[in-house]
């Protein structure tokens, strides 16, 4: 277990800097997605979460069409993608995950997914 930085006498500024450094280090440990994730990898992860054969997921698949894409699944998806953004997922981004297609679009925009394997 990495020990916390010894920052000596605590003042607000040094506490803020030490926290930011610590948070950056630990956020890299917590991510659930491997580097060079593809759309197919993402499809498998989302399929696992919503308990559907990944091959059946289309761009339009979402809470209305997939019965297990329920409130818990929505939270799991938020957690997955928040990790991949280094814990910086915004409220607007989280609200946009209404379909598999929207998730892929977000992941491409953020560089979370690479191009599909040939």
């Amino acid at each position: 277990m990495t020990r916390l930085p010894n920052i000596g006498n605590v003042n607000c500024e040094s506490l803020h800097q030490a926290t930011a450094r610590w948070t950056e280090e630990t956020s890299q440990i917590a991510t659930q997605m491997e580097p060079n994730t593809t759309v197919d990898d993402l499809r498998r992860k989302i399929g696992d979460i919503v308990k559907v054969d990944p091959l059946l997921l289309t761009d339009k698949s979402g809470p209305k069409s997939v019965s297990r894409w329920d409130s818990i699944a929505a939270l799991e998806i938020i957690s997955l993608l928040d990790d991949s953004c280094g814990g910086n997922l915004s409220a607007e981004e989280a609200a946009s995950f209404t379909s598999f297609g929207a998730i892929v679009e977000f992941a491409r925009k953020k560089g979370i997914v690479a191009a599909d394997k040939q």
Partner: protein
Amino acid sequence: MKKAVIEHIVSYLPERRMDNEDLVAQIKCWTADEIYRKTGFLQRHIANPEECASDLAFRAAKKLFQRQKGLAEEVDFLLFCTQSPDYFLPTTACLLQERLGLGRHCGALDFNLGCSGYVYGLSLAKGLIESGQAKCVLLLTGETYSKFIHPLDRSVCTLFGDGATATIVRMVEHAAAGIGEFIFGTDGRGGGNLIVPAGGARKPRSEATAVETVDEDGNVRSQDNLYMNGREVFRFAIQTVPEAINRLLIKSGLCQDDVDWLVLHQATRYMLDELLRKTRWPRTKVPYEFEDVGNTVSSTIPIVLERLIAQGRLQTGHRVFLVGFGVGYSWGGCLVQWR
């Protein structure tokens, strides 16, 4: 040197219970197993229509005074954390002072916080004690969210339970243990994500606010009812709480191995599971005590502490982190070295 020390914690839960089968009959969808899977809760205690949050807090305090004779006479400050006051005015803590028979020399005030409320209450108590303004603080939490919740809004009726706690925080000279460092946080941008929109000064209740609507998930509510954007509150918590815990570790000069217990606000099981995954705290240090009570808002943390004490698991010398987070958004954490 004066030190603020937690001395007693007692809870009171209303007698009426609502289990998952009752909820299935009410909301007419999901199964009891589905509710348990989604929330981690098997039942919640629900106040009767005539029971207010102050009544629950009163009963918690009476229980405490029955166990500790003579304690009521020693209380010189009463803090009442609630978002369900008896009236806009007068202050409910003033009414409780009279009902509990506390001395007229006692200070008393309400403070309006939810899930972070117990931590903030301990901070206020510590401030009063260590500045020499009080010696024996009675900190009450009491909540009846059930009265705000529409029975057909499954996003919230499956989660929240009513309850109250009473804690004594006392001044001890030269104590090595006691209430230690605090961290706080506030982000009012999240205010609209957990709110009862009507009924306050900003938007008084009216015929218009009572109009029920159905959201895209089929939940029914009006502006007089509690609304929670669960996804957004979850996002806030998984981003904020790990950082808050880290700040508390740094401020306390501790690392995870030095802390014996991390007592988190018992929001839902999935929330706790995710926070454990993100922070990599061992499950053995993070109590889950919510299946039979639900989310009791500001009472969740003291209920966990009460149970740890009763189980003999919380020992003198243990370092305990308490971290509350939620409505506001508001969050806070503190270190308590158990005495």
